[in-house]
């Protein structure tokens, strides 16, 4: 590695720790959210520097993009609720009484927990690195089987073929998270009419221009997973982001679909993955073992289904939480009246 490379890495590492600290210690929740987004982007850069562009893509899209949108949207709903609560106390103009970020409660216990967790993680991490097998573990075995995997990109081969089990369960984890949100805030906000939330020509035009491009990029990244960094998760996140953009700009974004269709969309990827895995059993193959000659086609089918479901799930995260936030703000407003 060159001197410039080492300098850059040191700078990046310091920057990441600093951003993490600022995200935890920021006085305003709004600042904390912004620092968290910057932290996600810096992490994506770090993954790219470590030669893991697949992870970098996912981190940038989920860690910085999607989580950032969820955080800021929640904060907006939170401060709307707070404003209407505080409105009757003197400030009759209805103007915001405080910074929209909201001052966060100071908690020494939280800080101590964070530091303790950090120390514990470092200890475990050092122990894990010390036990790392020489010669890269299973890398040689994976490389030797690449010809049978049906794809050319090793990461995709491991994720969708050699360790398809893990990926299937990961899609299941997303589904579980969705169920958790259903339990916590209810199945709300899916069906809705077109409503220009921001009555604004430019936002409207921008959305119309960007969304087709995002769908195109999403398909491209899905297809690219065969031979280069890319695949179902990255593709699904971009597609989901296109849906979120549509919702924010006031479009219906599948708002005409009934709730059962949404549910089907959420489960589709997980169910199809499972069906493909089980279909291998009667033929005498192991669970999720594709026939070697058509493995590439099976992987593409499974990845496409998963990308669609991931997009639906991420959009549903936003839709549910956004609707819950709005409901909360309305309830606060009624109480204030």
């Amino acid at each position, binding site marked *: 590695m060159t001197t410039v490379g080492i300098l850059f890495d040191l700078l990046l590492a310091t920057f990441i720790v600093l951003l993490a600290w600022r995200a935890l210690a920021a006085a305003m929740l709004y600042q904390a959210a912004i620092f968290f987004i910057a932290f996600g982007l810096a992490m994506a850069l770090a993954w790219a520097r470590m030669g893991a562009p697949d992870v970098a893509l996912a981190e940038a899209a989920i860690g910085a993009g999607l989580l950032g949108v969820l955080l800021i949207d929640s904060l907006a709903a939170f401060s709307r609720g707070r404003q209407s609560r505080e409105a009757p106390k003197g400030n009759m103009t209805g103007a915001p009484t405080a910074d929209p970020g909201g001052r966060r409660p100071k908690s020494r216990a939280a800080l101590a927990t964070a530091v303790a967790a950090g120390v514990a993680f470092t200890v475990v991490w050092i122990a894990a690195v010390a036990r790392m097998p020489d010669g890269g573990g299973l890398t040689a075995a994976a490389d030797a089987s690449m010809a049978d995997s049906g794809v050319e990109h090793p990461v995709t081969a491991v994720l969708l073929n050699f360790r398809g089990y893990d990926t299937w369960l990961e899609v299941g984890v997303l589904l579980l998270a969705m169920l958790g949100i259903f339990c916590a805030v209810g199945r709300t906000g899916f069906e809705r009419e077109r409503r220009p939330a921001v009555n*604004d020509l*430019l936002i409207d035009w921008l959305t119309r*221009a960007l969304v087709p*491009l995002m769908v195109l990029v999403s398909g491209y990244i899905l297809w690219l997973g065969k031979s280069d960094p890319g695949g179902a998760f990255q593709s699904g996140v971009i597609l989901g982001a296109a849906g979120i953009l549509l919702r924010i700009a006031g479009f219906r974004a599948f708002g005409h679909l009934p709730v059962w269709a949404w549910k089907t969309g959420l489960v589709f990827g997980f169910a199809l993955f499972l069906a493909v895995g089980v279909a291998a059993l009667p033929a005498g193959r192991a669970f999720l073992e594709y026939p070697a000659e058509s493995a590439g086609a099976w992987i593409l089918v499974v990845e496409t289904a998963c990308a669609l479901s991931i997009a639906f799930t991420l959009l549903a995260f936003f839709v549910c939480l956004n609707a819950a936030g709005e409901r909360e703000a309305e309830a606060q407003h009624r109480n204030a009246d």
Partner: protein
Amino acid sequence: MSAADWATVAFGVAGAFFFLGGTLGLLRFPDLFCRLHALTKADNLGLGCLIAGLLFQADSLAAGLKLLLIWALALLAGSSTCYAIGRHALTRSGSARKGGGR
């Protein structure tokens, strides 16, 4: 170093200058609208210069066009968010000079 490399260096330095200026403006300018102005100049000109520099290193026409596409998308996103933030600040504060000041 070839002439193309020198061109890359020149454009890269120019890009870095605009980013530095933009950052300085973001930190030092008095209110939100001035800061937005500084920020978008860094995005437009700084990134534009960097892309122009990288164009001299592009292997193929397709790679060059992708670089230009990145710049166009950043321009589109940058100016639109700038507009959205500015509009939000205007409607909130009711006057152009109050919004965003510390």
